[in-house]
């Protein structure tokens, strides 16, 4: 029985138990959960298992193969690191939401059919929104609501796609699909929303920076990477993805450069990095898919590390606006150090994790002859250093001293960051350990002379450009602002439209509303009159009256039978 149990369920069930525990027990149990799940993952046999017969369909709740395993490993790792990072938080809601969210993502990765995928897909949405709401502010409430609408909307589209697909092909298997028919197209679209495809992306940079300090770390790990996994599973080698991915990789750079909120900068760079993975999936060769999986693995780690360091800054300094920070390295030296390691990883410095995964995708694009895409990716790679690798640590920890003096981050946060940083460097130095768990055998050596030199040249010139821009004061000034992009549609346009419709409706309401309200009121009064505590149906009837009913019923029976 236990060998058919999805590790995700362990985390979800454990999360449900968390509210019952207190203090140290709760925290200890929370750390134990990802370990238990991981242990369960290690004991799983490859192949499709956990068949559940439900309403005439056989669900495969557990499909174990190299692709699902690599994502399961990193999800467990991310859950553990995020849990350590969140250990000081005294808010059971966040702990439950975080663990259940991680469990749902892991369950989705192991899903062998589309129905199971859908269930976990929706569960990730419903659990993760609490990480945003847990900030308990008016603004985060509305942000959370927008996030939930988009995420659940993606689930609804997915369900529609699944139903149509099942109707046409008779299959609900979660396997390679081909675009063209309506069903797979809808499924593709649903994946695209979670994967933050261009134009569909704005929920991401809207919501992640609004979540709690620790919640963002959870959020950054699971939802989008789950979508990458789903794409790799069902749409590997779809050419459209190459172009979508290239666009995703390039356009956020411009937003990231002018953005002031550093956690939002990270959110934009997350989209850019996702673009690499999408390109990898789109190319669809073994090397490219390996690259996508490896990049997801590394990216979860260093993006978590960056969000952790910015979270620590937010916790201590109370803001992550580039314009208000600076000089923090004096008071938060460890955090600053870890942030620099994360920045080096995302910029793909040799000996850091980003280097060994990003280059796989870039090489795969060159091998496939996608020269335009190759150029875009190289350009983005240089940009990554520019807008993130240097900008984030520079404005937060160095730059002109803002005079903010705070305490170093809490011990558990430092510990989480230290372990994550260690992993980033470790994978960069010993890529073999990561390559060993990738879906396909790896025949790729990242550390060749050409490769290292090319990358260093790229990085040096990018750094030079940054230095020049700063020196001559041409760098876009960090301003307090909210950058609008495609979220303009629902931040500005949609409310305007809704308001216009609402005016019409309320006009109608003025006319007919009173009648309707009176009718409803009347109905309630009548219901209460008969059913309320003193109503005739709730009263204790006198025995005689009640016995009369018996006679009436018996008489009724007899009359019917005799006539």
């Amino acid at each position: 029985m236990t060998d058919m149990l999805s590790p995700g369920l362990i985390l979800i069930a454990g999360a449900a138990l968390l509210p019952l525990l207190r203090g140290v027990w709760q925290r200890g149990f929370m750390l134990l959960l990802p370990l238990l799940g991981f242990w369960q993952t290690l004991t799983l046999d490859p192949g499709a298992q956990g068949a559940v017969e439900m309403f005439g369909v056989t669900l495969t709740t557990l499909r174990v193969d190299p692709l699902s395993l690599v994502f399961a490993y990193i999800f467990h790792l991310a859950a553990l690191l995020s849990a350590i990072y969140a250990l000081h938080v005294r808010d059971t809601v966040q702990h439950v939401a975080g663990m259940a969210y991680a469990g749902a993502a892991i369950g989705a990765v192991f899903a062998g059919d589309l129905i199971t995928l859908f269930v976990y897909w929706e569960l990730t949405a419903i659990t993760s929104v609490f990480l945003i709401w847990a900030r308990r502010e008016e603004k985060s409430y509305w942000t959370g609501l927008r996030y939930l609408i988009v995420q659940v909307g993606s689930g609804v589209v997915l369900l529609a796609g699944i139903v149509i697909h099942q109707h046409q092909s008779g299959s609900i298997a979660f396997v390679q699909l081909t675009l063209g028919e309506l069903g797979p197209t809808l499924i593709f679209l649903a994946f695209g929303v979670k994967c933050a495809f261009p134009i569909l992306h704005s929920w991401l940079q809207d919501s992640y920076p609004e979540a709690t300090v620790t919640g963002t770390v959870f959020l950054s790990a699971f939802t989008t990477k789950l979508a990458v996994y789903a794409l790799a599973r069902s749409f590997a080698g779809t050419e459209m993805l190459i172009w979508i991915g290239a666009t995703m990789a390039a356009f956020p750079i411009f937003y990231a450069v002018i953005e002031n909120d550093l956690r939002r900068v990270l959110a934009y760079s997350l989209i850019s990095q996702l673009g690499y993975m999408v390109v990898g999936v789109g190319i669809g060769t073994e090397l490219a898919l390996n690259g996508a999986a490896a990049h997801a693995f590394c990216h979860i780690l260093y993006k978590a590390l960056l969000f952790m360091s910015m979270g620590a800054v937010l916790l201590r300094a109370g803001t992550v606006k580039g314009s208000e920070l600076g000089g923090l390295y004096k008071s938060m030296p460890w955090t600053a150090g870890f942030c620099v390691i994360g920045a080096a990883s995302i910029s793909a410095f040799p000996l850091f994790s980003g280097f060994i995964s990003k280059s796989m995708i870039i090489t795969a694009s060159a091998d496939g002859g996608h020269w335009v895409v190759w150029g875009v990716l190289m350009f983005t790679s240089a940009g990554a250093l520019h807008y993130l690798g240097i900008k984030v640590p520079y404005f937060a920890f160095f730059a002109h001293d803002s005079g903010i003096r705070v305490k170093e981050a809490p011990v558990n946060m430092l510990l989480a960051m230290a372990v994550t940083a260690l992993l980033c460097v470790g994978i960069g130095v010993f890529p073999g350990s990561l390559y060993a768990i990738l879906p396909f055998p790896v025949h790729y050596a990242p550390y060749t002379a050409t490769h290292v030199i090319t990358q260093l040249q790229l990085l040096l010139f990018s750094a030079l450009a940054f230095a020049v821009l700063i020196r001559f004061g041409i760098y876009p000034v960090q301003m307090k602002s909210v950058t609008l992009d495609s979220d303009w549609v629902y931040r500005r346009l949609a409310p305007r439209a809704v308001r216009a419709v609402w005016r019409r409706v309320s006009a109608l309401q003025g006319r007919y509303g009173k009648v309707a309200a009176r009718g409803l009121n009347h109905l309630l009064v009548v219901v209460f009159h008969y059913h309320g505590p003193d109503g005739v149906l709730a009263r204790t009837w006198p025995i005689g009256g009640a016995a009369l009913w018996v006679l009436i019923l018996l008489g009724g029976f007899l009359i019917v039978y005799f006539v």
Partner: protein
Amino acid sequence: MITSNLPALQVVVPLLAGPLCVLLRREDVSYAIALLASWASFAMSILLLMAVLENGPISFAFGGWEPPWGIEYRIDSVNAYVLLIVAAIGAIVITYARPSVAYEIEPQRRYLFYTAYLLCLAGLLGVTITGDAFNVFVFLEISSLSSYVLISLGRDRQALTAAYRYLIFGTIGATFYLIGVGLLYQTTGTLNMADLAERVSTVTDSRTVRVAFAFMAVGLAMKAALFPLHIWLPNAYAYAPSVVSVFLAATATKVSVYLLLRVYFTIFGTPFAIQTMGLGDALMPLAILAMFVGSAVAIFQPDIKRMLAYSSVAQIGYMVLGIGIATTVGLTAGILHLFNHALMKGALFMAMGCVFYRLGSVRLEAMHGIGKTMPWTMGAFVVGGLSLIGVPATAGFVSKWYLILAAFERDWWWAAVLVLLSSLLAIIYVWRVIEVAYFRPPSDSAATAAEAPSVMVVPMWVLAGANVYFGLDTRVSVGVAQQAAKSLMDGGV
């Protein structure tokens, strides 16, 4: 030897253990006896169910008098299943009972409580197990008389009038049943159910048989508390001691519904009951009224035990609806809900027992903020409540699912819609309690309350857990219910 006498022991053990308590007169010894006898019954019911599933129906002739002359105990998949429900609830409730009994019943009466409890259990088991129509009446009276005693032990003075009311209607119901049996005996000259089934089918044109049918239908509907014959139920459940409410809510009406099935489908036979007498059409409107009126009244009740009692009226509506649909799937849904409703109402009334144990009240205004101080108790209430609503992954969902399936199978889509609508009402009355318990600042009594003792919490969570377990793993519950429904539709005994 033991195995061949299991059917007799199933009833005899609790029946003899009861008087033993009176002889010994000591509370602790009585409790030990009751505990032992109840768990022994539970074990025997498991063995019986397994034997029946393996080898088919068991027939046991009392005193060596072969049926149809002697009294026969006859166990097939239908009543083996109901036996298991009753015995399981009986065992779990007695495990839970001790602190609650000590709190609510005066010391010198406690041994009487255990006596009456055992007799009631024996009576309910007897009604279920016997294959003799008159013997049913005897056991019906044993269980009824002992439950009047149990209800009257309640602290509230209203418990006495509630018990008295129940006595009158219980007696009317049982008498109607007896009149029906008498009329059948007059026509056929036999009391054995299998024998009756054979002979009734040859004399279905007789007016005597039809009158017997009417009397038995009304009498049993009364015992099962089918709307509008439910008036005895809310007060009986509300004013009885908490343990009694749990036990009766989870078993007594279930046994009556079982008996209803037995009489309609086995004695009178499916074709006669459904086609000739139009039973489905007669039950349908009553079931639907029960679903809505019961739920609507429950919404406005300030006393939560009373609210749960009215919800029981509604839930009996679901069971009868399944029976009224009168297909194999419909019967499956009805029998399944019999089982699942025992689980959910058991858990819910147990939670109220825990609340009463700490607060001395189960009125809504006393329960403000109780979720903080009694998390386990209210957690079980939430699980039971979700199951009552029929949220997926709980037992309640499974039975509603089959009910809706059955309605669609007969193209009664409106019945499916009505089931869903009445579930919405269940959301309202369950939510009222959850809102008060979790989202209101604690009342004075709730703020100082502690969690109930673990003797009460553990059995309660066993039932709450069973609600989730049987919502996920339906092999046993649905499998047996399907088999039972099939055997009833085929007209076997």
